[in-house]
């Protein structure tokens, strides 16, 4: 399985840190606001929030990043992801309906983009492969496009 671009790890860290920071800020504000009336000791809200921050920004991203992987072997794309529940998806390429290459502002800054395969299926109507360099994503898209076109319409 091919690992994804390191940029994705950075993206996960930034997102985790942002969520964690919001949580810590909320906890701190609550702490200050409730200082008089709360029976809880000082830091009872902020300390756990800091732990969650550490989990989201430091501990979880590398694990989640390592869980991702993909392989394209001719007729199908395999995508592996998930830390707690590990999911391994096989997408037959000739059934792909259309393909997007998408890039958000944060992704653009980190030089990565996502490849989105749309299938006619309902459970996984979109298979998202994040953290590809622009080159890789476009190469894969072109390759998949030829697979779609090979069949008679």
């Amino acid at each position, binding site marked *: 399985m091919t690992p994804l671009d390191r940029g994705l790890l950075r993206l996960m860290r930034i997102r985790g840190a942002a969520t964690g920071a919001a949580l810590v800020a909320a906890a701190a504000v609550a702490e200050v606001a409730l200082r008089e009336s709360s029976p809880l000791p000082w830091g009872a809200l902020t300390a756990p929030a800091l732990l969650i921050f550490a989990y989201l920004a430091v501990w979880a991203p590398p694990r989640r990043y390592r869980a991702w992987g993909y392989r394209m072997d001719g007729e199908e794309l395999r995508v592996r992801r998930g830390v*707690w529940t590990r*999911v391994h998806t096989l997408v037959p390429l000739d*059934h792909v*309906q259309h393909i*997007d290459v998408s890039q958000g502002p944060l992704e653009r800054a980190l030089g990565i983009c996502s490849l989105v395969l749309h299938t*006619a299926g*309902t459970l*996984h109507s979109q298979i998202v492969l994040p953290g590809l360099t622009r080159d890789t994503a476009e190469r894969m898209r072109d390759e998949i496009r030829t697979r779609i076109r090979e069949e008679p*319409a």
Partner: protein
Amino acid sequence: MSDGADRRLHPATILLRFVKEGPSLLALPAGLAFASRTGLSGALALAALLVALLLAAKWVAWRRFRYGVGPAEIVIESGVLHRNRRSIPFDRIQDVDIERSFLARLFGLAKVRIETGAGGKDEGLLDSVSLAEAYRLRETVRARRTDAAPAEAADESPALFAMDVPRLLLFGLFSFSLVYIAGLFALLQTFDRFLPFDIYDPARWVGLVGEYLPHRWTLGAIAGVLIVAALLGSAAGILRTLARDFGFRLSLEGERFRRERGLLTRSEVVIARRRVQLAQVQTGPLRGSFGWSGLSFQTLGAGTDASGLQGAAPFATRAEIEAVLAEAPPLRLPPPPELARVSRRHILRSAAARLGPALAAILALSAWERAALLLLALLPLLAVAAALDRRFHLYALADDLLFVARGYWRRRLWLVPVKNVQSLSLSRGPIQRRLGLATLAIDTAGASLLNSPRIVDLRSDVAEALAAEISRRRQAQPLLRMSGKPVAHPE
């Protein structure tokens, strides 16, 4: 206006929609009359105003809705402020469904749904036109399609499957349902302040029962209540089945299945044979033991019910189901020995999954009534249920078909042609990893979230081998596009 769109819906549509939506609108003035002191005259004035407004709105919508048959397409123009012009090329039209609700039948109208490959529900909905116009549209579409099969009249094609009244009654009996009684109570609850007594006064109910039965809450009394409930449940099931499936008839016309059914609302649905993605056979412990089961098709696009399925033979014998499936190759029923069971450890996982909610329910009950703790003695029954789960969870891959069976109470058997598999997902949760298990989910077009084939708790290596084999067999199939959607353009 623009060329092509030269027809309007039947004028009675205005009335039809008014009758449909009017009553809910009148709830407001009715509530007002109750709640405030404006009195009856104020409420009546408001009601009249609302009626006039609604009629006017319906009239404008009707004025602004046009459709027509162009040289190569059907054109629909709609929208009061935001005009929308839609053209549906004849080649993209799968078929024309006609549905007639009870109200529409009173007005001599029919709802026409132009079915295309895409999933949108209201792609080409003409609500409503006269019945003659509906048939004319259908004939026009059939005649103009380039790949049109030789035109056949609806009544000439022989029935593949039909249900007569005795069969319907039997079906209704098996569709025993207490849901409708619950519905009746819900209705009573809404109107309870208009009732002359309090329906939540237990003493009243006990008293009522006591009046009719000599001894209170003897076994006989309980049995009596149960029998009454069973009778009501059966009656509800029979009525519902009769209303929905009266005159059920499935026939094959060229490349399409046609299904007609309904007592009050008469519907006619067409399922293109090549758009059938998979079939499902449903049955239950009781029904199954008498040899009855139901067959549904999963198709692409609109017109399916909430489960994503179209009933093809709701209450049939195995032979009848085989006869219908014979017309939808490569679908067929599996010979029983072909099916294998999932891992033994599925029992463990299944028991664990049931234990949590059961424990929580018992503990919650016991907080209220201490005696509920006695129910803990029933917990070993969960092991039995878990064993049944595994006993009825079967799968097999035979040639180009995948079979998945699941459920004891609600027995479902999926027949999935491997070429219709859109993607395969192997997932392993934390507990599954410890037990060396994996779940294989098979995604197909048009499946619903809850009604999609999954093989739960296969041994990891077996699951991987099965996924690889499905994928291999799928590729070995001649390339045949089964989805109605065109290959879309990337980006």
